[in-house]
């Protein structure tokens, strides 16, 4: 396991002990991997195994608060369609299995890893920290709205 070094895992465990208050459910959408081989679209998944290990480490850092479901989209394509998951690996976070509206598509390493941890902690604490004016504006939304953010690890 090289995605998260041992000392970071220990830091994570200590941090989660202090910061997690409520449950967090992770859903990992994945497909049988192909080690590091890059295959044509739709075949294999170069980062699915790393994503699985990352999701398991997050769960194992606070198993009393964090639960994990793994969905193999090659065996259950209907689930991916129903959950509107386009590609793998995708990690969805929510307070329960039905509210995974925060998603990371691809392996969230580098600068994306702190964003994943921040999201997990915010879900656990139900803490969005938005101001009242923003909440009033967001209340105007009456249709599902997708906010895609492209990012890179560096």
């Amino acid at each position, binding site marked *: 396991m090289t995605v998260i070094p041992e000392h970071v895992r220990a830091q994570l465990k200590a941090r989660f002990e202090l910061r997690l208050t409520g449950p967090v459910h992770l859903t990992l959408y994945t497909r049988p991997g192909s080690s590091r081989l890059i295959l044509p679209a739709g075949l294999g998944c170069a980062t699915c195994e790393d994503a699985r290990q990352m999701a398991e480490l997050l769960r194992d850092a606070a198993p009393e608060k964090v639960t994990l479901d793994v969905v193999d989209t090659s065996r259950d394509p209907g689930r991916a369609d129903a959950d509107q998951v386009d590609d793998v690996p995708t990690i969805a976070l929510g307070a329960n299995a039905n509210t995974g*509206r925060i998603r990371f*598509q*691809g392996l969230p390493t580098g600068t994306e890893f702190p964003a994943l941890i921040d999201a997990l902690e915010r879900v656990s604490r139900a803490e*969005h920290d938005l101001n009242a004016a923003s909440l009033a*504006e*967001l209340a105007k939304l009456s249709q599902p*709205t997708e*906010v895609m*953010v492209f990012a890179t690890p560096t």
Partner: protein
Amino acid sequence: MSLANRLALASPEIRALCIEANEFPRLSAQFGVRGVPHTVINRGGAFVGALPEREFVAAVLEGAGIPMEEQPGTAGPSTELSS
């Protein structure tokens, strides 16, 4: 991406999707990603760079087809979306 996640936490209508741009080059090309963070609302309008909370919310609402009311003395930088 943290702000997008916070919006998704605050509103049941919002789904935040953080995409590793290098891992999905075709998707990045499809949405014209040249720099990050590159934010796309409802797979239409987009903006590049980090925005303060108010401007980010305004951009999301604009992308969802809801103009945000201007508040006196709080006009910030343009959040007009490119499409």
